């Protein structure tokens, strides 16, 4: 395996709240290789955004190390982090909130260049034109304001801004969740094209497992602040090892009549990260839990099929999509 571009070890983040301490990240380790797309999937409150912020060194960690391009960045001052930010960028879900409505698109795209003192005015203008072309926006978009664009076009602007400094990696928090499905596919394909051309790596946060399967090389499944399964996308969908992954697979609505057979519906809500259950955090909702699951905490271990899984009884539940995807469906 290639040296990881980004590597995090044992990240722990807690927040104080009126109801008690929130264990938002409870010992998360992950690695992303150059040019790879890794996705992080899980329900709301599982700690996905906190993980993104922690990797960007934008939230206080209780412990854990973060390496980027072979250097420890977890303890750098904001000033020392600035050059790192050039190569590690972030995109957010809401293309409305993340773009300054008072600036033209040109000013928005030039802003990171100005902040890092890159190029003179003419060079920046050229770079803005390149970026617009790269994300499929017309040249005259430069003089318009964010409010004059649709949601999908605004997300293209946000992507262009993230690309301005030619980063080696983008962390994208729910980048297409707010978009209609037809536009979602446009943006996903755009991200893929950019990767093919530039070799950029992505860490994509999403809650839609079908989308994650579509775009990822590897998938990380989170539950209550922990990674419970990790594996190659095809393996996670065909041979999921953790019962929560199976539940997510069978809960994802599908137009495919095959997928609607034999499904597992979990009972109850995910527990609060304030009152984490003892033992396996999933055991109160787990369809195959035994006595041991309430006592001991399963750690993330190598799984029989080459990924990692945190379950005492891995691979027991079958995937509703156990069969390989057939070639094109002919109608």
């Amino acid at each position, binding site marked *: 395996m290639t040296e990881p571009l980004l590597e995090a070890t044992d990240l722990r983040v807690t927040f104080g709240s009126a109801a008690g301490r929130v264990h938002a990240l409870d010992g998360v380790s992950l690695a992303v290789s150059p040019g790879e797309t890794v996705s992080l999937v899980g329900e709301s409150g599982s700690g996905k955004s906190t993980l993104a912020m922690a990797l960007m060194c934008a939230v206080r960690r209780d412990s854990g190390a973060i390496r980027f391009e072979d250097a420890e960045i977890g303890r750098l001052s904001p000033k020392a982090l600035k050059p790192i930010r050039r190569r590690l960028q972030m995109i957010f879900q809401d293309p409305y909130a993340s773009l300054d409505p008072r600036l033209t698109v040109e000013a928005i795209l030039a802003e990171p260049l100005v902040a890092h003192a890159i190029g003179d005015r003419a060079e920046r203008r050229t770079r803005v034109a390149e970026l617009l072309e790269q994300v499929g926006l017309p040249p005259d978009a430069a003089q318009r304001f964010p409010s004059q664009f649709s949601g999908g076009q605004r997300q293209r602007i946000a992507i262009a801004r993230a690309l301005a400094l030619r980063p080696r990696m983008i962390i994208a928090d729910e980048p297409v969740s707010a978009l209609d*499905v037809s536009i979602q596919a446009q943006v996903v394909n755009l991200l893929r094209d950019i990767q093919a051309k530039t070799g950029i790596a992505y860490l994509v946060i999403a809650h839609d497992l079908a989308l994650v399967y579509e775009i990822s090389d590897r998938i990380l499944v989170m539950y209550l602040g922990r990674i419970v399964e990790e594996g190659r996308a095809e393996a996670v969908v065909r041979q999921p090892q953790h019962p929560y992954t199976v539940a997510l697979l069978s809960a994802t609505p599908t137009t495919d009549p095959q997928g609607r057979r034999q499904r597992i519906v979990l009972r109850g809500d995910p527990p609060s990260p304030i009152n984490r259950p003892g033992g396996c955090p999933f055991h109160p909702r787990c369809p195959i839990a035994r006595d041991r699951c309430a006592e001991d905490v399963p750690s993330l271990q190598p799984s029989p099929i080459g990924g990692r899984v945190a379950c005492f009884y891995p691979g027991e539940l079958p995937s509703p999509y156990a069969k390989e995807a057939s070639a094109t469906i002919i109608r």
Partner: protein
Amino acid sequence: MTGTETVLAIEDLTVDLPLSGGGRFRALDRVNLQVRRGEILGLVGESGSGKSMLSLAVLGLTGIAGERITGRIALLGEDVLGLSPSAWRRLRGSAVGMVFQDPMTGLNPVRSIGSLLVESVRRHQRLDRATSKTVALDALRSVGIPSPEARMKAYPHQLSGGLRQRVMIALALINRPSVIIADEPTTALDATIQAQILDLLRARLADRAGGILITHDLGVAAEVCQRLAVIYQGTIVEQGQTAEVLAWPYHPYTQGLLDAAPRFDRPRGRLVPIPGQPPQPGDRREGCPFRSRCAHADEACAALPVLAEVAPDHLARCWHPLRAATSPFEDAV
């Protein structure tokens, strides 16, 4: 079991709304839909296509300054379009129940769950307090709420999103309405909770009533609905049995939605987006509403196609349907 009684008939429903810059735009254009007792009709389309406008019209909840609504909405055969606000208050919660995306907008935050349910029963069924309380407890039980006695005293904000949506469904069903309108009822929920609520809707929505499930997600409609109507820019473009529409779509937009959505049973790396952007309120709208994004569009598409029967119980509005229409005589040949 789907009965034959039509509980809701929407005929030529047209809604014109004022544009912020002056002028008007058509949010719904001559929509015709029927819902039979025991059936859930899925209304599917992208954001801004007019789905919520239709649900508000059926619930008598429009009221945008300058709106113009024409056509007919028949609830159990009775035309309800243009009823007075007080007549609507009698119908809502009794003849027609509603479930919205955000239960907080449908549940009064300063009232306990129990008092909301009891009040609705007392208002519409004229039962005494003790009997109403029994009905309310049964309603909570029937939507799978654990320890209903304790929940009666809770306030909406004390419940999780999934439980709140169950309460909203209990409230929608409590007076045994003939029609239920559910507008994106699971959109705000996590996948595993969405699956629970879809199970509940499947089991309970069509018990005695008929319903419309509004969603932007074809997969959600496929899980719950027997029939499907696809809407684009205020216009129904395809309609039919769900399984048939999904397996043999005739309209390029329906096919486009299917191709754009990721699926586990297809090879990866093949999402086919629909080009262009979804329509905006001010957009020009002569001819086929989909033509600016349609790969099959030609001069013919400058005129609006009719919603024609392309196969038995299957309608599509396209000059160039994706497959040859079945002749009504084909079976006999």
